[in-house]
């Protein structure tokens, strides 16, 4: 079963990764892909993600393994940016392929809820020339609780 998990420190084109990923799984019944981009909120000028190499990538690999175990997948792709990004740039891409659609769709939803609230990333945003750190949100815990 194929697992492809990467941290990327430069802008990336999700479509080119997804094309290679699906090409490597002939016979799939469905592929579900989510791409998250930096939201153009009000006056946000930039978003910066920092990570801690020994924990962040290992945690993402564990998450991919959990998705493979929980859902009937042929493969899963998880890409996450680190570093500084401008609004409109892709920040995350999760793609799952499976024999049947529901496993692919649910695996992506599961991975995204965990990436948002349970992965080792620290985010800060720049508004009006000033950087400020983004704190945890209650909604993230509610999102996680969906998966028991």
């Amino acid at each position: 079963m194929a697992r492809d998990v990467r941290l990327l420190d430069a802008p990336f084109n999700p479509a080119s990764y997804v094309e290679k990923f699906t090409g490597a799984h002939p016979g799939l019944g469905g592929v579900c892909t989510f791409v998250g981009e930096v939201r153009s909120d009000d006056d946000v000028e930039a978003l910066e993600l920092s990570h801690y190499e020994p924990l962040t990538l290992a945690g993402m690999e564990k998450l991919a393994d959990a998705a493979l175990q929980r859902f009937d997948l042929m493969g899963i792709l998880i890409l996450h940016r680190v570093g500084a990004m401008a609004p409109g740039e892709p920040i995350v891409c999760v793609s799952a392929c499976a024999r049947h659609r529901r496993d692919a769709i649910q695996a992506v939803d599961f991975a995204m809820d965990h990436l948002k609230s349970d992965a080792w990333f620290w985010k800060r945003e720049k508004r009006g020339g000033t950087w400020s750190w983004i704190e945890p949100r209650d909604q993230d815990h509610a999102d996680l609780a969906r998966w028991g």
Partner: protein
Amino acid sequence: MAVRVVFLGKLADLANAAELELEAPLDWAGLLDHLHGALGEAVAAEKVKLALNGAVLADKTQLSAADGDEIALLPPVSGG
């Protein structure tokens, strides 16, 4: 050799540095001795976790670091 201390998220701002080297051996009390003011308070807060060589400790006050070890101080992760 020494113990390398890495500050993540807003702890790096409070420390005015991304990392620091302290003399080994180093325990929890020894670490706090070197982190003054707001930084020391923030690190001691319950929600801040500590990893030793890439493994998060269940109880950070049980820290015992030797020459060449790396400590990471981890504030709660940001939400979506």
